[in-house]
């Protein structure tokens, strides 16, 4: 006999209070947290091909008005979306200029580990 598990649970996230709907709550839900990344752009190397802006799944990058030494408009993170990077590193992989990379913010991970122990 297969007993149907509870369907569609509305979850309230502690941070920001954004509600997300899940069809089924995963059993190891408490163990996982979406990592938060910091976008670092090496402005001197950028040639404004805009691949990172176009292919970011969270759309957190835009073209800025600031120009680098060679006159290219360097991308920047949208104000207010600094903590929305989910460390998929697609921008890092797709940048042909070796000009953008992501650093995972470590404080969040430590908190996560503490949660796991308890």
């Amino acid at each position: 006999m297969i007993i149907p598990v509870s369907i569609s649970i509305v979850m309230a996230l502690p941070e920001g209070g954004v509600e997300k709907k899940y069809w089924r709550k995963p059993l190891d839900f408490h163990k996982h947290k979406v990592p938060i990344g910091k976008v670092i752009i090496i402005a001197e190397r950028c040639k404004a091909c805009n691949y990172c802006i176009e292919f970011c799944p969270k759309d957190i990058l835009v073209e800025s008005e600031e120009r680098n030494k060679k006159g290219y408009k360097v991308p920047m993170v949208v104000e207010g979306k600094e903590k929305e990077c989910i460390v998929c590193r697609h921008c890092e992989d797709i940048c042909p200029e070796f000009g953008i990379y992501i650093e995972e913010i470590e404080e969040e991970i430590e908190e996560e580990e503490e949660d796991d122990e308890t």
Partner: protein
Amino acid sequence: MSELDSVFDAHPVDAHLRADMLPHIWCPGCGIGIVLKAYIKALDKAEIPLEKRIMVSGIGCSGRACIYLNQDCYHSTHGRPIPFATGLKLANPDLNVSVISGDGDLFAIGGNHFIHAARRNMDLNVICINNFNYGMTGGQSGPTTPVDSKTITTPYGNIERPFNLPHLASSSGATYVARWTTLDVRRLRDSMAEALKKKGFTFIEVISPCPTGYGRPNRRGEPIDEMKQYQEIWDLREDNWIIQEGADPREADIRLNESIVVGVFADTDRPTFTDLYSQLDPVRKKKLKEIVREDERRVRE
């Protein structure tokens, strides 16, 4: 990630690059940088030590790759990266030799070397960056230019049939054949790591945008538009299954403004040239010994 990475605070790949040479000379939106980064990450993923990494490049835009890479590299003459790599492999079979070059270098002037290295099954990893034209010399038509597309030497449209590179490689005898676009960065990296670990002649074709040489006469717009074209193909994939595992390479022709078949085309095993060569030696020694014995008998008689 290797040990060198912790020394630098800059880009995670900088340890494998001559970072003081950057920014590089390639045009905005060129795909060679993406392929080079995927190659570096694939080397790390395949866990190949720094002493065993060797990269050979030919002439053309992609030939600059060996200048930016901080490891053992050879910048060979036009069309001859595969003979150079063959020599390296035969002199020291422990090395992991890979060739990164363009379509004009590997298939126009170096076409003969390519098919014969594949036939012999030399243990090389060949990565071809296909941008459909000769980019460095100003955008002339080459052996991979699709029919009806315009270049500066074919202003009324190309009438020559282009090479179907996966079919050429697999029918010549390559053991691993794949094709990706520069948008499939992760699949490209994983495929490269697989090819680096594999014994035998492996071939990966990477479709790359060339906004200056090929994009301009064909009105492809900004480099981002060309990448979006790949993305449209990408979006269609789930319905049309254009990613095909073990697809028939004969049907992988590239036509102008049509979807490109990507995926792994061939994955087989065959004894490599170096394996067969090492097996030769004991036979030769036996024959030599027999000849010496016969000579000794004659002397006694």
